[in-house]
């Protein structure tokens, strides 16, 4: 936690640090430097706590324990259970398109802009260990098939933003914005009914930034224009359908959505990506503010 930075802008404090493989920012409309420091410490501590607890790269956490149980049942704590419950809900809401067991497919897919498309046989073998419906999940006890894995990375960052918002609200009533790598939320409107200006990077031939005003709530963005494969003129997006093991066709490059909480915004944008060509139609149905390209 030595990487914490705090600087004063003209009417707010900007704190920054790195966590969850992303640049993290905390914008605080407070006058007092000590208070800003407190908030920044609290947010950074919570971000690191969640990263440490749920990262699949850690070999000493609950995710590692679940993924290496070799078919045995693992009892999980309440917070993990809530995240798994939520993920299970999403699995059902998305008819199986959102699946925390789909991470093993990354063994075959490496979206490095090359033409390295995997063999269908390899995908078929991996698919035998994908599918939330194969998991036994009863009263905080989870049992995976051997070689199955779960990955809460798809919800972790957005969850961390919302948790930090809850924590900051207990420290101050003044407006604070928490931004973890483009997934962001605010605690309350700014003074004088003001807003935070948020820039959204529009990728394309020439990158540009669109600015918009966020008064309250959250924004999350899904998509990454740099992660794809190109073979025989076909562009394979990095959005994988866990039911087929192959990329979804026609996904937008990026989708941004506003919602009351970051987790809602993030999951709606993720589900939109999974709709492929129907992404925009899906977003219209949700009656939310969105940006797509």
């Amino acid at each position: 936690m030595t990487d914490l930075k705090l600087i004063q802008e003209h009417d707010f404090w900007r704190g920054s640090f790195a966590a969850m493989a992303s640049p993290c920012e905390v914008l605080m409309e407070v006058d007092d430097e000590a208070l800003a420091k407190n908030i920044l410490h609290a947010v950074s501590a919570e971000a690191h706590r969640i990263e440490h607890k749920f990262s699949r790269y850690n070999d000493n956490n609950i995710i590692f324990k679940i993924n290496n149980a070799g078919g045995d049942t693992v009892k999980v704590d309440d917070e993990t259970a809530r995240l798994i419950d939520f993920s299970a809900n999403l699995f059902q809401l998305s008819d199986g398109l959102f699946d925390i067991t789909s991470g093993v497919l990354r063994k075959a897919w490496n979206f490095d802009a090359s033409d390295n498309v995997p063999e269908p046989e390899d995908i078929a073998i991996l698919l035998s260990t994908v599918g939330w419906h194969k998991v036994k999940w009863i009263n905080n006890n989870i049992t995976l098939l051997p070689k199955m894995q779960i990955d809460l990375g798809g919800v972790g960052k957005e969850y961390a933003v919302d948790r930090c918002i809850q924590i900051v609200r207990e420290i101050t009533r003044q407006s604070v914005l928490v931004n973890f790598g483009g997934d962001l939320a605010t605690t309350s409107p700014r003074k004088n009914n003001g807003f935070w200006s948020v820039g959204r990077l529009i990728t394309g031939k020439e990158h540009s930034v669109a600015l918009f005003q966020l008064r309250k709530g959250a924004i999350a963005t899904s998509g990454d224009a740099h992660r794809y494969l190109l073979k025989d003129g076909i562009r394979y997006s990095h959005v994988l359908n866990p039911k087929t093991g192959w990329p979804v066709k026609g996904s937008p490059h990026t989708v941004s959505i506003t919602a009351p909480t970051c987790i809602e915004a993030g999951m709606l944008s993720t589900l939109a990506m999974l709709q492929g060509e129907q992404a925009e139609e899906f977003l219209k149905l949700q009656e939310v503010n969105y940006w797509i390209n």
Partner: protein
Amino acid sequence: MQLKKIKGQMSLAAGVLLQVSSPSSQAQGSEWDVDSAVLLYSEGDGRVSAFEPAIYAGRDLQYGDRIDLRLVIDALTGATPNGAYATSQAQTFTTPSGNGSYTTKAGDTPQDDTFHDTRVAIGADWTMELDRLSKLTLGANLSTEYDYTSLGISGTYARDFNNRNTTLTAGLALNNDLIKPVGGLPAELMPMVTQDSPLNRDGDSDTKVITDFLVGITQVVDRKTIIQINFSLGLTDGYQNDPYKILSVVDTNGDLASTGIFNTGTTGNLPYVYEKRPDSRQRNSLYFKTVHHFEEDVINFSYRYYWDDWDITSHTLDLKYRYQLAESYLQPHIRYYMQSAAEFHTHNLLLGTDVDTAGNVLLDYASNDYRLAESETLTLGLKYGIPMGENSELSMRAEMIRQTVTDDSNVPAAEATPDLDAVVLQVNYSFVW
């Protein structure tokens, strides 16, 4: 995947994940939910009337805990049947304190009109979230009036299963009650005496201990339906008489006894004896409730079957139907109750059969409390509620209660226990503070 609108469902799932009831409530601090009410209860004909203000307040605390508090004040005046029955002559009774008397006109059901009391009851429940799926509620209650004090504690454990669709509940309550009647405890099955004679008394006070166990299950059936089934077992040990209730002693002609020990002029004994009930009672009940949401309206129905070792069984049906109007609602209520008599319930004691000439009552137990008789109660009510702003509601209800003793077989029809007609009027105001 078929495209569908999932925003609302997503929002609820996120609320569960972040442990907030709804995402929009995140910003609000914890507040008191307050419900206040005043109830007027009147039986008419100079019988009991009551004025009862009450207040309830509950709030969520940190870590999923919750506290609920309540206070009721119950001011009673009026008369209640004393258990003797109407005769063709005027009857005179000694007041419970022994230093006064009251007279009932010929043909009237004798009522003790010295009855007035103010009761204060307070209670608190603390609910703790033990873990994500289980809760423990600890409660304490105190009720006090000039001749009665009740102190109780309770604990209820509830655990959710099946994605929180099933809740199993286990509860235990202990109550310790102190009965301290005016003028002391009447000697059981001994004659009432004239106000100038030494009272038949058996100490100043007594106690009873009540233990209740409950196991229950609540099940969400579907998006619109929830059901609950409880089984409860209650044990009461100790003093269970009503110290103000008596029975008439009659001779074979149906007249009040006036010979031997009941010759009031020479013995000072009136032809009435104080009741006696067993000092233990085991109560059981099976309770079923369902709440169902129609398109707009809500129905709330319950049925209780009760049985105990005093031979009383009862059936209770209760139905509330909430008609949702544009903003407000109208809620008719119907309740039907029927009970069988306690095995020792009797309308009077027959000289020579139930009581010998020396005044010894030959029965183990006897009571003519109308509440232990075979009876039925019908309640019809209507409630109207209207929201007052975002978090407040004003409501009022009126209910009519008719209670009928259905087995007056061994007394002449004219002397049967009269029907009880009562009216309840209540105004509620609930708000968030």
